C-alpha cells in the first residue's frame, strides 16, 4: 500500500492513520503525532484509485464501520481512535 512513513523516537506501537488530504482534522492529527514524536504511517485515502482505494476503504471499515476520517489504528486494531481526540491520542501514545 502507498503509505508514507514518518519516523519518530516514540516507536513502541505500530501506528497507522487513515486520512484525507483535504481534511483539517486529519492535518491536526498528523501534526499531533509528529509533535509527540510518534513513529507512524499515514495514507491519504482520497488520493488512491481503483483496487487500492477499495482495499484501503475496506480496512478502514473493519476498524471503523462508519468509514470516517481520520481513523487511527494502534497495533493493527488493539486500539482504534476515530476522529481527532487529542487527549485519547496522548494517553495511548505519549511516553
Amino acid at each position, binding site marked *: 500500500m502507498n503509505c508514507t512513513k514518518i519516523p519518530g523516537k516514540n516507536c513502541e506501537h505500530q501506528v497507522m492513520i487513515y486520512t*484525507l488530504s*483535504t*481534511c483539517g*482534522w486529519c492535518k491536526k492529527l498528523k501534526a499531533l503525532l509528529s509533535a509527540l514524536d510518534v513513529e507512524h504511517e499515514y495514507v491519504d485515502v*482520497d488520493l488512491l484509485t*481503483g483496487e487500492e482505494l*477499495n482495499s484501503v476503504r475496506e480496512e478502514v471499515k473493519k476498524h471503523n464501520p*462508519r*468509514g470516517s476520517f481520520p481513523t487511527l489504528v494502534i497495533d493493527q486494531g488493539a486500539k482504534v481512535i476515530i476522529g481527532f*481526540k487529542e487527549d485519547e491520542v496522548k494517553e495511548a501514545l505519549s511516553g
Partner: protein
Amino acid sequence: MMDGDEAKLWWAEENAKRNGFFLCPDRNLLDDLIEGLVKNDGRYGYGACPCRIASGLKAYDSDIICPCEYRDADVNEYGMCYCALFVSEEVSNDPSKMEPVPERRPIEAQDAAMEVKEKEEKRVEEVDGASMREEPSHEHIQVGVDEEGIPIWRCTVCGYLAARETPPPICPICKAKADKFERFGFGR
C-alpha cells in the same frame, strides 16, 4: 490566501449569516477547511465536504456537498457540523466546546458512490485500452476522434463520452458545464 480561498470564505460567511450559523472559531482549521473545499471544487467540480471521501460523481455525492445535508442536525446536536466549518453561536463564543462530531452519513451512501466510481474508472480504462490497442493497425484513425473523424469529448466529472464537434453545453448525466469537458485521448 489564494483568490479562490477568499471567494470561498466570503461564500461561507454569507451562508452562515443567512442560516443563523457562525464560522469555525479555530482560524487555522477554518483556513484548512476552506482550502480543502477549494481543492474539491477544482478536482470534482463541486465543493464536497473536505473531511469526507467523495466519489467525484455529483449525483452520488450530493448529500456531502457543502453545506451538507447533515449540517443542520449536527449543529443542533453538537454545536458544529461534521467538519466544523459551521458552528453554533455558543461554540463560536467558546471554542473549547468543539469536539469530534460522529459521522451521520450512512456508510451505505459512501459505499454506493464509491462502487459507481470504480465502475466508471474501469469503463474509462476499457475504452482507453480499446483505442490504444487499435492504434497500430488503424493508423488512419486519429486519436481523440471517432471513426468518422468527429472529436470525442469526455466529461471530467462523471466520465460521460460524447462524439460531436464541440463539447455539450451541459453534461446529460451529471449536469457539469461545457468547460468540464476535455478532448478524449487528446495528445496520446
